[in-house]
């Protein structure tokens, strides 16, 4: 499944300062759909190159990281259970920084 994953607010520093990633993520074996929980795991092992604890806490994002799926807060779409579809755009913005 092709997705666009964007990092902002400093999170891009965890993946070699690249903000926008066009990625192709496969479904988990035996699963029909891809949900955010799977995507987070995939990002953690494929995109994040350093300090994964700045991005994730437990099996979800660190509190203070804003997550948008197609420009909508993932709180409205079911957070970890949000089902992803082809060409979806997922944005992560960290609030944990100076300002």
């Amino acid at each position, binding site marked *: 499944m092709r997705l666009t994953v964007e990092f902002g607010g400093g999170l891009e520093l965890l993946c070699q300062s690249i903000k926008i990633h066009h990625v192709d993520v496969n479904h988990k074996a035996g699963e029909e759909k891809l949900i955010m929980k799977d995507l987070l795991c995939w990002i953690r092992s494929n995109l994040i190159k350093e300090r994964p604890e700045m991005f994730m806490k437990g099996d979800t994002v660190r*509190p203070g990281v804003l997550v948008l799926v197609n420009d909508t*807060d993932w709180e409205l779409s079911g957070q970890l259970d949000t089902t992803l579809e082809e060409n979806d755009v997922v944005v992560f913005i960290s609030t944990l920084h100076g300002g």
Partner: protein
Amino acid sequence: MDGGEERRKRAVGRLCSICHEKKAALKRPKTLDQICRECFYAVFEEEIHKVIVENNLFKPGERIAIGASGGKDSTVLAYVLSKLNQEHNYGLDLFLLSVDEGITGYRDDSLETVKRNEIQYGLPLKIVSYKELYGWTMDEIVKAIGLKNNCTFCGVFRRQALDRGAALLRTDKLVTGHNADDIAETVLLNILRGDIARLGRCTQITTGEDGPIPRCKPFKYTYEKEILDYFSTECIYSPNAYRGFAREFIKDLEQIRPRAILDIIRSGENFRISSSTKMPEQGTCERCGYISSQKFLDVVNDKVVKVGKDFMNKSRAVIKWCKACVLLDGLNRGLPKFGIRRTKDSQKVGEHRVSNSETTVANFESKQCGNLDF
């Protein structure tokens, strides 16, 4: 576009609880309302306007400096204030005020953002630098003192730099982009530190009204998350400013109970301190003559007696200097650690190796990060 259509199809979920027309894009942490972006921008601005009016933050004709770091909070503040100023005829003269600490590669970017804001919002910009105010850039200070206590210098200097810049611009007030999360965090930290003087001050929306340049925080009740939602396009960021345990704790609380942030501010506001409690003095610095709302330090300018490896002060408290002057004096005399430690510790550790006629510092509370200073 195929993808776009499909996305729209799926989006038929909830509608905005305000306009009931568009699809809800976010959930407000304060109210748990699910609303669309357009309605969000409107209620966000309306709330700031209400805070400004209800708290009488400004008077017509006032000159207002906006402390602009180039970060999201101050960028949104500059935008919203200039917008509200026009829409509601506040009659304010707005200025952007930035501090250049002299940190290569860090401020460069954010100062560029501030310069962009100057053009975009048509607000005059003044940049004051540590170099011109103190004779030292942060890079030079770090070279002299290392990376350990640099935040103390930076925080103390920045606070005063903003005051001085505001004075140069002849403004009546200084507004900063401190948000509800910042204030909740500071309430917790001041409780943990037992700093009741700051605890009393940190929740006030306007401080320093008795001084030359009062400061106020129009975003006192504004969630950081919503500032980010408002901003969401692009975020200029300070990579190393990890805000610490209290910050993360606040975010954890928000996750469980979004109202927690406002509740902590409320708790801080309602803290009552016994009237018999002795509060630290404030006043004018005897070195720079500068009036600061910061606590003043007693500088012992008398004999220092050597006891074993440690030094003991024989007489106390003659000169009253502001923290910036104590730190600067230490830097200029090649004693950069001067003024960093608490007296208790320094007597134990004997870190202030000063010769007999040198001054030493007694009685003050050091603070690690300038960002949290109100």
